[in-house]
């Protein structure tokens, strides 16, 4: 399958996406932000359609929208009790906007399907390079703030007690999340990017008990999902997202069963 250039590019791009999503996912799950990552995907869709409408790249539109809205959600919902409601509100607004932008621009509906559900054929060499740079930026941000981000994500109250600037950390994390969503949407689509941002991280929690190991397992499962998905999509001509999400869901349930089995033995 590597005889085809588009498959090589898709493979490289997905590898970077999987590594980024695997790392960020560990923090998404421990910060209880699965719902937010889903919403950011929808916002990403609106951003991409906006990009198409005004003639900039969909990726740039996506980054613009997800960045602005993640910071908005962050400041609207510093109290976790209000977070669900404010996320729903912002999500509703952006789904509506996305559909409006798409209908105003002259693009066909297949373009919308690509943004929403992902595509392995639509990615160019230049886009792959952009993705790689963004992925490296996200990983670098996480590395720089690794210790404090870990403390805040796995023990928010303790981190505050220890005097960490938890609000600032929250904004920094939301920026990396927004970037990850924009990157991930390119292959698995904006509707299902949250699969990679939540399931491998959630599964890892059932298997290992330290942060470095959680990251390793999460990245491993994420990579296995996209590689297998790409291969099966190539062989069967079915959508890559179907295979990725099925794989991650199956592995999640296996992880959960393993944890329950271990509790009883």
């Amino acid at each position, binding site marked *: 399958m590597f005889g085809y250039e588009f498959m090589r590019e898709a493979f490289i791009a997905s590898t970077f996406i999987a590594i980024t999503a695997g790392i960020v996912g560990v923090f998404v799950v421990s910060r209880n932000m699965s719902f937010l990552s889903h919403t950011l995907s929808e916002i990403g869709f609106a951003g991409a359609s906006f990009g198409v409408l005004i003639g900039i790249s969909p990726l740039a539109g996506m980054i613009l929208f997800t960045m602005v809205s993640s910071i908005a959600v962050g400041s609207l919902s510093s109290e976790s009790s209000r977070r669900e409601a404010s996320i729903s509100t912002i999500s509703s607004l952006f789904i509506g906007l996305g559909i409006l932008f798409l209908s105003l621009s002259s693009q066909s509906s297949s373009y919308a399907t690509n943004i929403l559900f992902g595509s392995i054929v639509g990615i160019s060499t230049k886009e792959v390079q952009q993705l790689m740079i963004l992925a490296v930026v996200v990983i670098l941000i996480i590395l720089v703030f690794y210790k404090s981000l*870990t403390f805040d994500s796995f023990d928010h109250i303790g981190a505050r007690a220890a005097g960490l600037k938890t609000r600032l950390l929250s904004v920094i994390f939301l920026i990396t999340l927004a970037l990850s969503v924009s990157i991930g949407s390119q292959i698995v689509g904006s509707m299902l990017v949250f699969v990679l941002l939540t399931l491998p991280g959630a599964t890892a929690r059932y298997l290992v008990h330290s942060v470095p190991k959680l990251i390793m397992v999460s990245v491993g499962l994420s990579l296995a999902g996209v590689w297998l998905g790409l291969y099966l999509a190539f062989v069967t001509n079915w959508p890559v997202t179907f295979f990725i999400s099925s794989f991650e869901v199956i592995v999640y349930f296996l992880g959960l069963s393993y944890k329950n089995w271990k509790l009883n033995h």
Partner: protein
Amino acid sequence: MIEAKNLEKRFGKQLVFKDVNFKINDGEFISLIGHNGSGKTTLVKIMMGLEKKSDGEILIDKKQTIGYVPQFRNIDLDYPLDIEQFVRLNLKWKFSASKRHEDNELVNEILEKTHLTELKNRPLGLASGGEKQKAYLAQSLLNDPKILILDESTASLDVEVKMQLMDLVQELNKKFKLTVIFITHDYELSKKYTKRALFFANKTIKPISIDDVSEDMFELGGR
């Protein structure tokens, strides 16, 4: 030493406390008692610099690091980290291998001090209430604090486990001259372990001897 001089705190127009004057000596084990909402947690937040005072002074030597063990933590059954990894969250990033080695020794020493060595690989989500509190305590000890604040840390524990935890804190207090500030609603514990109390009532805080502490101060708190 911690000293408050005419300390005052308001949230907007609402007065929490005023005319507060007290001294807490190094190595003292003191209770903070009073009704819910009387400002106990607000006072310790001011001590830690997490909340601003409205007026007056609070003097704490800058070199005296504070360890804080809060009342609630979001640790559910699925919480993934084991006890050792949870404690290690409070470590700073170290570049040199020798510093990291020192950190490992420090963590082992603190796990030993808090009687957690045998339990260090247990996922925190599956630990008992007492084990969790010991882990919170161990984590706060990593900064080598000179002052330890326990914010109702014993509230949800059964009597025997409470005593074990308090014996441990008393041991740290005596051996390492750790100043311990114990926010509590537990009359028996404050009588048994502390010699003085700061009593929060009538919008102010008064230092009193533990002999003058009565059970009704915990129930009504002089509302």
